[in-house]
């Protein structure tokens, strides 16, 4: 994942400290299982067109990703691996691909081409899976599970901006979560107040490069292969699970405000804060009532 993970858990006892160490281990294990760069991994086998059996974490993450892909009509697509590699965002050496390369790589994209039967993936042709969009959220949720199981009464797990808070923090007040303002890591767009739950943000300022006077960010539109230009600078989702928040924030970023907010209809306990390119900030109804939000 390459991100900094911070875990804080209460009360500060030896047992809880051990739990924190285990939580870190759990997150590392999930990262190893879902990392598509390793050549001997299951994901590499998929790229060669082999039929594979997914186990445990990988299966859970993949199944969930497929569900969101269906619900978002492909705005979120876990089969974007080849396109992402072309852009180089996953290797920290980003570059602008040639149009021809991009078109070729887009041919490998398409979640409809893949089916999960039990734990076995069937695909007509080689598949490039990139689960980065959801693996972090899943890891955060699992880390919180470890903490809870081992006796922590409250805590917060933050993997580079995708986080989950549980329990009553010492002092009894609600958790205060800042939402970063686009383009300035020292400024906030606002502060959320939640009793517990997960918060994830997708923004065009997290990973990007500029060339020829244009900025190319890492949230790619599976339809075009290019960075999504939907009029949004960032999408912040509040939900019970970080896996859901992570996936939805990416999907909605690609879909844009209107279609994106449609995706949230009927989802209880899910709230969104959208920062538009115009600077305007849109929020769903629950923001300000079910969850607190102070604009900055």
């Amino acid at each position, binding site marked *: 994942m390459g991100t900094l993970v911070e875990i*804080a858990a209460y009360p500060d006892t030896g047992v809880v400290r051990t739990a924190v160490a285990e939580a870190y281990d759990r997150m590392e294990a999930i990262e190893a299982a879902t990392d598509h760069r390793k050549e001997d991994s299951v994901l590499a086998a998929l790229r060669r067109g082999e039929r594979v059996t997914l186990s445990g974490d990988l299966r859970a993450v993949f199944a969930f990703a497929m569900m969101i892909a269906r619900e978002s009509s492909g705005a979120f697509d876990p089969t974007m691996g080849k396109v992402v590699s072309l852009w180089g965002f996953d290797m920290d050496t980003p570059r602008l691909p040639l149009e021809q390369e991009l078109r070729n790589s887009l041919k490998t994209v398409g979640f409809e081409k893949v089916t999960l039967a039990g734990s076995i993936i069937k695909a007509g042709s080689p598949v490039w899976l990139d689960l980065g969009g959801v693996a972090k959220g899943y890891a955060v949720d699992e880390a919180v599970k470890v903490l809870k199981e081992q006796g922590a009464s409250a805590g917060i797990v933050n993997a*580079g901006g995708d986080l989950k*808070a549980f329990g009553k923090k010492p002092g009894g007040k609600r958790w205060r*979560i800042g939402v970063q303002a686009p383009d300035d890591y020292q400024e906030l767009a606002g*502060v*959320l107040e939640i009793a517990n739950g997960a*918060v994830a943000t997708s923004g065009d300022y997290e990973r990007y490069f500029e060339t020829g006077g244009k900025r190319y960010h890492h949230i790619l539109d599976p339809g075009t292969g290019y960075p999504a230009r939907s009029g949004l600078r960032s999408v912040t989702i509040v939900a019970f699970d970080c896996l859901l928040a992570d996936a939805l924030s990416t999907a909605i970023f690609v879909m844009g405000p209107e279609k994106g907010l449609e995706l949230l209809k009927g989802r209880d306990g899910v709230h969104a804060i959208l920062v538009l390119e115009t600077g305007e900030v849109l929020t769903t109804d629950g923001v300000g009532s079910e969850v607190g939000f102070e604009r900055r």
Partner: protein
Amino acid sequence: MREGKDHFTTSGASSFLQRPTIWDTCLLIFLLLLTFTAPRILIGASGDSLKAGSYIEVRTVDGSSVISLKKDATHIVKGPLGAAKIIIEDGQARMESAPCPLKICEAMGPIKNAGETILCLPNRISVKVTGGEGELDAVSR
């Protein structure tokens, strides 16, 4: 010898060379009162409040950085005169082993409320508490 109020020549000299006067004492009392009441008024008027802060902003010639007050730590900050230690303990910050001659800065700490400051002028270091009630548990990016 010229009498009178021409103070710009030598003859004005004698009016000062005397023992302390009643006026001197009045002035002294007035200034004593001022010295103890002015700070309350000035600090209150500027809007700084007595809320515990969560970060300190440390400014040196090289720039500024923000350090959390929640983690006990020792930070070494360098200025033109040398290195000084900023120690964070129990949510408070203070300056230790400053290389300046008067060590005023060392006596200015510990600080913990929003707006409170420590200033080491010779070594060009300033430490100011910020954050107040806006303390955050995390930031989503």
